[in-house]
């Protein structure tokens, strides 16, 4: 069995005064798309930034290892990290207008990425930049390479971001809510583009999203985070067919898109009562205050992430691996 491309072990991240990520462990294999799902405050973005050591100065990695192709990124030197970022791990963020420098042309920004990591001449880099713009589906790439970000629409800008991200053929792309700010008709195009490039260039993608439809259509595996912990990790099909963790079940049940033909006149959306703030001072499982299946033992200690027979993992002491549809738990 080949070693995974990215192997995170017991990664914990904190700000002064409180811990945001409580020792998460997961892996990403070469060439696969792993979705990281969770709601605000669950720590998914912080985890993603920590992988690339892009945390704000007030945050700190408290412990853990991030093994990327054999190197531990947590202890790597700043110089080593600069070689990794943009070249071996790339980042695509949510808001392309603020990720792109408004005073540089799009072509110049792509060239900058290329020349930072590869010893090529300016004209060769420029040629490559135009090829990349063509690759991501921007019409008239030669002309548009000399235009500024504000001359592009939101979807086009995000394509430019994709071009920059794949410019040096990284092994892993971290995409933090890449289509949340885009219209739904554009979202499909951009995600299809990313997926196509992934297959073609053999990259892995860590796709951070809150949209379960996106997870179902574009991810191979999914991880669910709640209050700084991973609570479930499975392949995508089993996840939607029989999610194990009560929070995952609740998310799927509450998801409006899952309502299908449902209408408010005939059925009520199943809620997860309360809010994530209740996890703050909980000594046991962080989801216990909101969990419909909570038993007293749940509040003793946070349950560890346990591996099941089929390779999936759940952090719940009472989760029952059954074929019962998720509807029943919250009905």
């Amino acid at each position, binding site marked *: 069995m080949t070693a995974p491309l990215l192997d995170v072990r017991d990664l914990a991240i904190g700000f002064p005064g409180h811990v945001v990520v409580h020792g998460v462990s997961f892996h990403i294999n070469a060439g696969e798309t792993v979705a990281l799902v969770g709601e605000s405050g669950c720590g998914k973005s912080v985890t993603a930034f920590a992988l690339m050591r892009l945390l704000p100065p007030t945050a700190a990695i408290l412990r853990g290892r991030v093994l990327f192709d054999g190197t531990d990124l947590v202890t790597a030197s700043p110089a080593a990290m600069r070689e990794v970022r943009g070249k071996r791990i790339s980042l695509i963020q949510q808001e392309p207008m603020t990720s792109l420098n408004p005073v540089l042309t799009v072509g110049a920004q792509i060239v900058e990425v290329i020349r930072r990591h590869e010893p090529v001449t300016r004209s060769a880099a420029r040629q490559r930049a135009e090829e990349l713009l063509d690759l991501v589906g921007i019409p008239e790439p030669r002309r548009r390479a000399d235009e500024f970000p504000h001359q592009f629409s939101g979807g086009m800008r995000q394509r430019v971001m994709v071009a920059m991200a794949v410019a040096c053929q990284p092994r892993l792309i971290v995409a933090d809510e890449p289509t949340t700010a885009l219209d739904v008709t554009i979202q499909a195009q951009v995600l299809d583009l990313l997926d196509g490039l992934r297959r073609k260039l053999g990259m892995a993608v860590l796709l951070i999203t809150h949209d379960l439809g996106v997870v179902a259509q574009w991810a191979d595996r999914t991880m669910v985070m709640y209050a700084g912990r991973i609570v479930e990790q499975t392949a995508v099909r089993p996840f939607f067919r029989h999610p194990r963790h009560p929070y995952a079940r609740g998310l799927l049940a509450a998801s409006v898109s899952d309502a299908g033909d449902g209408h408010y006149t005939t059925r009520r959306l199943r809620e997860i009562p*309360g809010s994530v*703030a209740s996890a703050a001072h909980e000594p046991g499982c962080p989801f216990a205050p909101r969990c419909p299946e909570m038993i007293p033992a749940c509040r003793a200690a946070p349950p560890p992430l346990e591996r099941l027979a089929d390779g999936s993992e759940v952090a719940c002491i009472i989760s029952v691996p059954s074929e019962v549809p998720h509807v029943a738990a919250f009905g």
Partner: protein
Amino acid sequence: MSALSQETAFAPLRGPAVIRHRLLRASLHNPSFLLGLAILFTIIGIALAAGFLFPGDPQDMVGTPALWPGQDADFLLGTDSLGRDVASGLAHGARVSLLVGVSAAALGLVIGTLIGAVSGYFGGWIDTVLVRLTELFQTVPAFLLVIVIVAIGQPSAPVIALAIGVAAWPTVARLARAQFRSLREAEFVTAARSLGYTAPRIIFVEILPNAMAPIIVTASVMVANAILTEAGLSFLNMGDPNLISWGSMIGDGRPLLRTAWFLCALPGGAIALTVLSLNLVGDGLNDVLNPRSGLA
């Protein structure tokens, strides 16, 4: 519904932070702010107690002229060329400086905030007219404007304060206008409009409390500037002839600069100290009130 109420009982997001407490906590961690406050309070204290510490008129000639500090136990800081007690002059001068400084700044703040708020909120031709007016006042050198106004009226402390206030409002107006222009697009302002709130209510009750932070910071600097302007006027003998102020003391001490330089140095030092303390307080307020400063 009651079960729902219980479940939505909230946990505070970031500790027990109410805006006031956060302010207090942040200020206590800022040594320069505290230093500035300490100096300022001392000066205010002396000004308040001037009548008690140094009864009588500081303009009275009470001693031998040009005594050095420490020469005579009755006059710890010496006397000036006319035999007036320097210490008494400093203490009573503090009153003048602070009173004129604060009232001038207050006037400037009120006028400037009003004009800036109306200009920023309404936009359109109102904005154009008021911006031109602001520019007009800004292009006239402030000190000269003050001199002209004082020359037209009488050189008394209230008129001086008025003049300085009138010269100082443009800075505040620009600031207020920028604040109101950006805040009027805020969603809670749109909500206020959709609820039928009148423009005065929106300007003063909805937007102004949110716009005050940079204006408050500017206030301390304005007081400092007003004190300096008043001192300059008095130095040039254009101040209130019935009052001793730090500026007038410097002016009176000028002829004796070579022999009794303390007559200039002491009031000059007082001015410098006051201005310094106001600047420190202003910086501290900026750190505390500015949401982007990272102290929130």
